[in-house]
């Protein structure tokens, strides 16, 4: 079952709004909560996305699945999975830095984000310059 664009937009919008509200409350010192609690909307959203990707990848194992053109699709899904894990690693490292390890170098926190951004930009660049030329 595939979600419609409206449902996907609503899901993204709702979790972003919730996260921003909690972030503002924390930054303005109105809510003395742990940073891991502030990130709850992000954890839920990431879990939903991860489950969706894993279910789609597992769909290949069903009997009667047509493997033609499947390797390209699987590569894409594997990249999405890696991207989600990188985003999750960045958020976890950021929370850990803010909550418990203030002396930890920020470089280590940002390495997953940089990997994610570089990967995303390569994919976007491929779509802009290579696919269009085709």
């Amino acid at each position, binding site marked *: 079952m595939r979600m*419609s*664009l*409206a449902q*996907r*937009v*609503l*899901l*993204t*919008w709702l979790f*972003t*709004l919730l996260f*921003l509200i909690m*972030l*503002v409350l924390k*930054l*303005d010192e109105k809510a003395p909560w742990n940073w891991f609690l502030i990130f709850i909307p992000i954890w839920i959203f990431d879990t939903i*996305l991860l489950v*969706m*990707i894993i279910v789609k990848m597992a769909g290949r194992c069903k009997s009667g699945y047509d493997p033609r053109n499947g390797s390209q699709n699987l590569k894409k899904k594997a990249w*999405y999975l890696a*991207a*989600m894990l990188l985003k999750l690693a960045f958020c976890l490292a950021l929370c850990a830095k803010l909550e418990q390890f203030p002396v930890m*170098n*920020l*470089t280590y926190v*940002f390495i997953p*984000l*940089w990997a994610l*951004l*570089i990967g*995303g*930009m390569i994919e*976007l*660049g491929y*779509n*802009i310059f290579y696919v269009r030329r085709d």
Partner: protein
Amino acid sequence: MLFSLRELVQWLGFAPFELLLQALALLVASVLLVLKVDGVATGLSWWGVFAPFFAADGLSTYFTTIVSVRLFQDGEKRLAVLRLFWILTLLSLKFVFEMLLCQKLGEQSHELWYGLIMAPVFILLQLLMIRACRVN
């Protein structure tokens, strides 16, 4: 992932090239942020850290103006005006947010609270939701 590039372009109204520009700005700004916070580039001001975002906003505005002028010349007047207004609204809200955040971080001003700084982002989110309903 959740959205295809085509859906993202349709929803946000930005061209893929502009998305690439904003992603590049985020990458450069995050590197500058790390250099500043880790004490490698202590002389770097907060305005310097945010400079890639300002540059990306400027380039995006330039790109949008060119596209709108071309659309206008091709007779697509309504589309040109709508695109120009939408992108300029998004970019100006983003710019206000970045400027307020920069001011807060640089001067540690107590009059600026984060709820106020985030106000343009909340407006942006509502606009994006309305546009999503229209796109559908």
